[in-house]
């Protein structure tokens, strides 16, 4: 049996070519080269540009642009409103006037006791008091003059239109002590008819 088998093997071996050339050799190499370049791009190498270098470049550019944009926006922002936030020099001014303020507050409280409170409570139950500011009413002389007259006139039935004009809340920080002043509302009444 073996000789017959061997002759079949030889016959088949001779009938199949050892080499097959094709016109597609160049196209196949182009395809292989393209794939190799892509795989080379994904592989890290110090000598060749690859995905790691490109990621590094993107990170550097994005972080640099982020910093530049942040700096530019910081320059363009408007200054902080002094009414809502006091800078350190303003606080120092208030500290100097603190003793005057206390006197003004005491006088305004004394004057407010003369006011007919039930009439004031009609307007929504809010405590309406004079504004005690650090500039105008801080003068004790003015406060004394005003103390003779009621600071808040008694409301007529016809003058129910009230306006909340201004609300100022101040915090003065002196080292570790916080002097907190009460919120003061100013009630402007319409002229009596």
């Amino acid at each position, binding site marked *: 049996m073996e000789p017959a088998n061997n002759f079949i093997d030889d*016959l088949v071996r001779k009938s199949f070519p050892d080499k097959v050339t094709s016109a597609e050799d160049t196209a196949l190499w182009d395809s292989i080269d393209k794939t190799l370049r892509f795989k080379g791009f994904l592989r890290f190498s110090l000598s060749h540009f690859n995905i790691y270098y490109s990621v590094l470049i993107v990170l550097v550019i994005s972080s640099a642009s982020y910093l530049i944009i942040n700096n530019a926006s910081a320059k363009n922002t408007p200054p902080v409103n002094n009414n809502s936030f006091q800078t350190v020099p303003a606080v120092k001014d208030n500290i100097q006037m603190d003793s005057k303020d206390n006197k003004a507050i005491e006088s305004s409280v004394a004057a407010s006791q003369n006011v007919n409170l039930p009439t004031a409570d009609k307007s929504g139950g809010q405590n309406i008091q004079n504004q005690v500011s650090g500039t105008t009413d801080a003068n004790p002389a003015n406060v004394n003059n005003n103390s003779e007259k009621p600071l808040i006139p008694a409301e007529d039935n016809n003058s129910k239109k009230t306006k909340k004009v201004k609300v100022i809340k101040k915090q003065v920080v002196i080292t570790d002590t916080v002097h907190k002043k009460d919120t003061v509302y100013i009630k402007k009444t319409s002229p009596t008819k």
Partner: protein
Amino acid sequence: MTEEQIIEGCRKFSKDAQKALYEKYVSTFRAICRRYTADTQNANDILHDCFIKIFTKFDQFTGNGSFEGWMKRIIINACISWCRDRNTGDQFLKVDEIKDDSIYEEETDTAEECNDVQSTILNANFTKEEIQQAVELLPEGYKMVFFLYVFENYKHNEIARELNIDVNTSKSQLSRARKLLQKKLMELCQTRVMVTS
């Protein structure tokens, strides 16, 4: 460029070395792929994948043994995988279950009858195309074992390991492949005689 220069160049991912390797071996490897696929397009697809694998996994070649043998093994493994995928497992794995009664009948033939068959086939002067067609008609599993044994010079234990089959199965498949091929060539002889007469 010598083979040593090609190997060194490919280790350094040199384009010139890679192209030189491609040009040197592409026709040989295409012949292998054509045997298993019998189709140029599929052969080119396998070649493409194999060359990429060769170039990117060049560090796996330790230098022990033949460089061409290492590459051929990659090509043959890719061809086996391709055949396995194409046949979706069943046809390929159950190839030993294919039974042809005529093959078993011929197993009982005497040596004299075998010599007659041999002389008839050899005297028929078959063309290469006729023999290739006869081989193509073999079942996929028979053909695979036959090719690995005849062309790649694999031993039965190597075939069994590559195809994940038993060694005895490999032997029986090779024997049946030869018998079936003889039968087909004899049929072709008889057809020729009928046409001429």
